[in-house]
């Protein structure tokens, strides 16, 4: 296993399109770093630069003690798991697992040992002689994982590996991935646009937007102390309520954004309470909690999350109160 260090890494495509700029991050040996952000934010490009599938136009990429900018993908000691699995369709599962090792002239006995080890770890023993076409999505993803594991690489790279699976399988695989990471103690760079996946898997998250790193931190830090409006709005379901406005009481009247998570906002039917009034527009019952969407007089929408089933009905008037201890303030 090895650490990965990106220093001022950037990628500019022809036509001056900047996909990523100034990415600085140091991933410790054995760390699980999740690169998260909306589509087109540059997270996949960054991962592909680490893999060597794209050349970085700026900065240096270090894997272990080596600067690898000029090193071919096969010599970077990495393994990558792709979104659509990228299994060789004409080869059996066993051959898929063995192919990379054969290319590296690994001894046959060693190849067989690693395959049986990975197959046992991932429950692939009964599938070894099947072709990828005869496997389900989850099984294919396991084979893709196995192909990475048998390589015993310094760094694992995952490019949205779970996004082709259905919701239930995704949750299952997520838990398996987490367990696998603990078992292998591997350095992992993992790209996803799914914030839930990011929060549950990552030791640390790297949030990107428009090719720029917005914040790097543990899931707790990112969720409870978002660095800016983008991070605040991106992570959390439903997203944080953001209110923009001038703040009086400061020396210079400054535009600030107030952020409140839905569970920090409380709605009450008791119209005597003090606070802005709103009208309920939608009530979403989610089983263990309910999301209430209310429209303020000014037209802004507020989302509040309450536990259990809510008594509110669409069209009810209510008063909004907030727990200001949980308020986030953003100057940007």
């Amino acid at each position, binding site marked *: 296993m090895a650490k990965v260090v990106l220093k001022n890494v950037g990628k500019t495509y022809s036509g001056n399109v900047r996909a990523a700029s100034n990415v600085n991050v140091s991933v410790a040996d054995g760390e699980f770093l999740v690169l998260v952000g909306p589509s087109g934010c540059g997270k996949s490009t960054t991962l592909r630069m680490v*893999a*060597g*599938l794209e050349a970085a136009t700026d900065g240096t990429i270090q894997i272990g003690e080596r600067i690898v900018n000029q090193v*071919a*993908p*096969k010599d970077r000691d*990495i*393994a*990558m798991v*792709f*979104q*659509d699995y*990228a299994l*060789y*369709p*004409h080869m059996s599962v066993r051959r898929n697992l063995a*192919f*990379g090792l054969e*290319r*590296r002239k690994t001894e046959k006995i060693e190849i067989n040992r690693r395959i049986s080890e990975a197959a046992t770890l991932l429950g692939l023993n009964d599938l070894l002689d099947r072709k990828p076409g005869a496997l389900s999505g989850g099984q294919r993803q396991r084979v893709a994982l196995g*192909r990475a594991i048998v390589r015993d690489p310094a760094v694992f790279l995952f490019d949205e590996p779970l996004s082709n699976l259905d919701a239930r399988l995704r949750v299952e695989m997520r838990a398996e991935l987490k367990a696998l990471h603990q078992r292998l103690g591997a350095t992992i760079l993992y790209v996803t646009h799914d914030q839930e996946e990011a929060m549950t898997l990552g030791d640390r998250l790297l949030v990107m937007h428009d090719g720029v790193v917005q914040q790097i931190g543990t899931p707790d830090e990112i969720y409870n102390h978002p660095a800016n409006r983008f991070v605040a709005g991106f992570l959390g379901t439903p997203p944080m309520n953001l209110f923009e406005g001038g703040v009086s009481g400061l020396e210079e009247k400054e535009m600030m954004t107030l952020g409140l998570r839905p569970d920090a906002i409380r709605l009450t039917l008791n119209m005597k309470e003090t606070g802005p009034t709103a009208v309920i527009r939608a009530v979403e019952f989610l089983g263990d909690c309910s999301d209430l969407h209310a429209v303020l007089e000014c037209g802004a929408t507020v989302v509040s999350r309450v536990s259990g089933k809510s008594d509110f009905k669409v069209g009810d008037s209510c008063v909004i109160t907030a727990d200001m201890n949980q308020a986030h303030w953003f100057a940007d």
Partner: protein
Amino acid sequence: MKLKISRYAPLVLGAMVMLFPLWWMTTISLETAARAGAATAGGKVTLWPSDPQWSNYTDALKEFGSTPWVGFLDALANSIVVTVLVVIGQVLSCSLVGYAFARIRFRGSKVLFGLMLTTMMLPPQVTMIPLFLFFRSLGWVDTLLPLVVPAFFGNAFYIFMFRQFFASVPEALIEAARIDGCGHFRIWWSLMLPMCKPVIAICAIFTFLFTWNDFMGPLIYLHSEESSTLAVALNSFRNQYGGLDDVHLLMAASIVTMIPCVLLFFSAQKHFVEGLGKGAVKG
């Protein structure tokens, strides 16, 4: 029921039209010399010869060339050698070039691809004389080389077909192979070729048919009897004035020559139909 008749009647009629020459050949090939000659001169052709002359077939094969049997065996061997080599050459070269056009970005690739496609517009008759002069200057006339070697330099149509197929292979598969340690050549050989079996089948089948039946190429380049292929050797049934004395033997020899193509058609019928569809829709 009515619908069935109206659907099958044109099919039966079409099949009869297509099968007529084959039936005619078979019937004539089994007639005696006199009756066959009379039939081709405008006489009556019976549905099936009253006294089938199966010995016509052995006689026909003996009569290829000047030495009995040797002429036929020589021509058969030449045809097999040329066809097999051309098929191999065509599949390897076209897929390799198709892969390069589909998957390697290099300066001028689009121009080169366009240039290659324009060669499809060139009628072969235009290049016939310059090519002959070229091969003569190499001293290759009356050898199999002018028929075989060009196949190793690709064919625009098949290159186009391979390119279209390779372009549809997901990029991630190639990237996975790169990470697994493959270069372009290895990706082509270990990944792309096994994956494009349907395209290979189409390329191989059509090349086989064209080469096996090719008359013009061997006629131009092969002069001696020992080097001729079956298609050209059939010509030896014509007499010195260009007429036909033994039309029944010619028909028997033609049927023998045709057998590999018919067998290939039946065994690879699925690919044929698929291939024509592919050519039409996807290229």
